[in-house]
């Protein structure tokens, strides 16, 4: 099973087994990883599931669609070139080892 690694702002890492198809947001909530809020339930309405994706994985992700792009304009922490909404990242075998950095705040 692929793994996803969450890195909190203080550098601490949590590694989670990620069933293919699960979203990075859902995996964080289901495993008690703090730092992702995701209050709209993955509906592209809240931007509180913001993550910074490690550069080496960025190109393996499906491109940002319009709704995500607009929602990324309202993240609590600055949007960077590697910003994504984790509810839109579905795990695949290709993404094994995916490293996402969590922002200081989500709200």
């Amino acid at each position: 099973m692929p793994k996803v690694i969450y890195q909190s702002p203080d550098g601490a890492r949590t590694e989670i087994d990620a069933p293919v198809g699960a979203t990075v947001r859902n995996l964080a909530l289901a495993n008690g990883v703090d730092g992702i809020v995701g209050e709209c339930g993955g509906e592209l309405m809240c931007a509180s599931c913001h993550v910074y994706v490690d550069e080496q994985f960025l190109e393996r992700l499906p491109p940002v669609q319009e709704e995500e792009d607009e929602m990324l304009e309202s993240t609590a922490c600055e949007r960077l070139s590697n910003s994504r909404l984790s509810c839109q990242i579905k795990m695949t075998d290709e993404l094994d080892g995916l490293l996402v950095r969590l922002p200081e705040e989500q709200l």
Partner: protein
Amino acid sequence: MLRHGAVVIVGAGQAGLQTAVSLRSAGFERSVVLIGAEPGLPYEHPPLSKALLAGTAQPKDVALRPESYFDSHEVELLAGERVVAVERDMRRVLLESGAAVRYEHLVLATGAVNRRLECPGCELDGVLSLRTLAQALELRERLLDAERVAIVGAGFIGLEVAAVARAMGKQVDVFELAELPMGRVVSEPTARFFARAHRREGVHLHFNSGVRRIVGDGGRARAVETSDGDTVLADVVLVAIGIVPDDELAAVAGLPVAGGVRVDQRLLTPDPAISAIGDCARFPSPFADRPVILESVQNACDQGRAVAARVSGDDRAYTAVPWFWSDQGQLRLQIAGLTVGAQDAVVIGDPEQGRFSALCFAGGRLLGVESVGRPGDHVAARKLLARRASLSPEQARRADFDLKAYARAA
């Protein structure tokens, strides 16, 4: 056994759960007890009329937190326990099971119950309502077997279910007393757009039409009889005519209620040891000219957070910008602000293409924006409203008006 919680929350729904979560993430270290009448883990409602009903989400997908969360974060979840009384003088709540739980601060987050349709036949088998997970699962079961579905009420939930049922190939009839769908809460251009969209998908919309009687056969619903005297066949009748806030505990405890538990800007009742939030609370909003109840995930979550912040020492008025969404088939409606009572709606974009926003004004002031297929407008509108930036209908009517650019500059 006498339990005790520094904070006791009644109602383990969206608002109650959020309160507990936010207390813990704010570093609150004292005891938190979350009491919920429904069995199982707290869950979110939006998928109940969307993905769960369509079968693309399962019950496990709607849990707000896994079971392990409650242990690891020391939130004592009493699921399947109903609070039957609040004894304010003793600062405790009584459970149906007979136990009592003492509180230092009590948060009422009891949500709402669905308004019942009072007409002959409303007790027949096959007449359903949709609020809880259990009800959603029953509705899904019944839809699978049904051919014809009647929906009473063209509000958000009625129309969301209509779209799902239509996509399942059912014949769908929707009965609405008003002359437009969602008339209570959206502007006319948006309401008309959705009426056209649902009709195009083959939903039969009946406006100015109430249900007088549900006709049964052998105890099962078979048809509805409308106020015009028509009879329309139906194997399932969904009643979706709005909610009644669950303010009974507060009322019996002598707290002021007025269609919802009355709270101030800080979400406190007149008893400083009791707050009320979410669908059960009527509060003064800077976005409305009289106290309101807002039935939305945003409001439930933001109010839960606000109360958790106050209890943790960060005491402020609640002023969050309201936002909401409703998925109806392929279409998503996004609303920022409160557009009820708009006198003027300026439409930008192109409804024919399914991409437009209705900018709603009253007294020359922007109340809110309803968007379809224009997520950028929605995000911009939230920012404008949060900053209380001004925008006049005249500005919005200019041919080259661009809401995103305007919000960026504001």
